[in-house]
């Protein structure tokens, strides 16, 4: 579904990502992990055409994404930003979610169709925000706002969903709720998901596969148990950890080892 080939890109002359190669198959839930500044967000921004690669190409459904118009890409790829702001936005949750229909509009279509509304309704039902759909978006809590942004992304009817640390700044209940939902979308709606996560244990629990980035290079890619080893983590994060198996999911679970000295 998505192929990143020899991707090198960054801001101005500074390269953030260097010669990245990987393929994403359909219906996978792929996690991207790595230390701060390792290029996780930059990678997502390259996939959504926010920044242009200096070298290398990205293919979506076998087509170079720079050959696909922004509008066509937005019909198939949706993005949920990290800690989205809605300061001063003067619209209701429903109006906001309907913005997700923008890429699907025809040139002289100014009003929402029944279908547009049905899709938005469905997305709000999935994210469990139907009850707050008439509330102004500026008055939502952090968790509700994150769900609203997710609902907007789903309203785009994407095939590929990108999320940049959707659980940062949320309490544990909201984290689990959002990740459970993403897992469900991935399973029941066959949505391909690429998610950037900071919390290694959440990444371990929810992702089918992981990509570990280090200093703008792809350090390793594989199943959670292959990536989340004490060796890899210590090498990349320069932090001592102990890894045990989670008793329920039998996925790796990481314990930090504080320096007692």
């Amino acid at each position: 579904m998505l192929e990143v080939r020899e991707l090198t890109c960054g801001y101005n002359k500074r390269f953030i990502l260097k010669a990245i190669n990987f393929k994403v198959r359909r219906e996978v839930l792929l996690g991207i992990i790595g230390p701060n500044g390792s290029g996780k967000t930059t990678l997502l921004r390259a996939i959504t055409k926010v920044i242009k690669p200096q070298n290398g190409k990205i293919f979506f459904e076998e087509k170079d994404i720079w050959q696909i118009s922004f509008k066509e890409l937005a019909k198939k790829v949706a993005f949920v930003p990290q800690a989205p702001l809605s300061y001063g936005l003067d619209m209701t949750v429903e109006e906001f979610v309907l913005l997700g229909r923008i890429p699907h509009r025809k040139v002289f279509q100014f009003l929402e169709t029944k279908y547009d509304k049905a899709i938005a309704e469905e997305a709000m039902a999935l994210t469990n925000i139907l009850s707050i759909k008439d509330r102004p978006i500026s008055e939502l809590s952090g968790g509700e706002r994150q769900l609203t942004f997710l609902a907007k992304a789903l309203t785009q009817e994407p095939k590929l969903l990108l999320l940049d640390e959707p659980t940062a700044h949320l309490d544990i209940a909201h984290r689990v709720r959002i990740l459970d939902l993403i897992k469900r979308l991935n399973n029941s709606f066959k949505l391909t998901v690429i998610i950037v996560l900071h919390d290694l244990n959440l990444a371990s629990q929810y992702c089918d596969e992981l990509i570990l980035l280090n200093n703008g290079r792809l350090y390793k890619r594989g199943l959670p148990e292959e990536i989340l080893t004490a060796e890899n983590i210590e090498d990349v994060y320069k932090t001592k950890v102990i890894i045990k198996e989670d008793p329920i999911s039998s996925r790796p679970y990481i314990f930090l080892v504080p320096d007692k000295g």
Partner: protein
Amino acid sequence: MDKKLIHWAFFILLFSLILLAVSAFSFLIGSSHIPLNKIIPLILKGKGTIEYSILFDIRLPRILLGLAVGGALSIAGVILQGMFRNPLVEPYTLGISGGAALLVSLNISLGLNQRFGLISLPASGFLGAIVVILVVYALSVKKGILKIQGLLLTGVMISFISSSLIMLIMAISKAEDLHGIVFWIMGSLEEPNPLLIKLMLLISIFGLIISYLFCFDLNALLLGEEEALHLGTNIERTKKSLFILASILTGFSVGIAGIIGFVGLLVPHLMRMIVGSDHRILLISAFLSGAAFLILCDTLARTIIAPLELPVGVITGIVGGGLFIYALTKKEPLII
């Protein structure tokens, strides 16, 4: 039908009615008193009487020009405020008016308007606007990317430079030229050339239609440039097109009517408070009410101390500013 559509239809109807009422009021009121009961017989009688030509050759063209300029400045304001996501931006912030005023002052003080006729005033105003647009644009594009904040700062600086130069010109020009410069800078809807009025109307309505092609891009831009891009907006193309559109609307307005301040700042802001920030309703509302606002201000300008006339820019400033402060105390200001 759904609630939003009814809302929107109500607003469009309301603003259309206000525009109609204000136009009718402006048509019937003036320094030469024409009694109400005579109006209809006059119109039926047709051309030939003095009253008829006052109505149709003096008052009507001013109404039409007010409609065109008020509408154009208001949608230029909506577009720029949406694009910059900054409610303090107005069409003149980009230095367009400064450039226009500079060339017009130069024209008047060099006496070119006497040699080339009155048409040279709007022509030089428009030329000044175009030059500034090109300069601001060229300075703000880096590697094909239009830097929005750069655009704003360059525009403000160009405004300062041109107002300094205008002061220099005013300081060294003759007293009779000074009057012309000051009057032009304060703006007026008096325009003897019917062709220019028609042109302005055309530009204004054309601008409204074109702006609707971008109404969803403007909505997406409410969320910021990157989010708009994720919603399929071709950001660079959209910013450039919107900048050019707003510049054309402002450039023609300034060239033909001089610098009529405040319309492009006040009307978009008020409308955003009343109808919300969805550009599908915001653009048309701003157009209609901007037109009504300017026609009303112009009517006041030409009747308050009739037969003398106040500069319309003075009225838009006073009425608009008062209205604005009132609105701000009534409702939380919106930072878009």
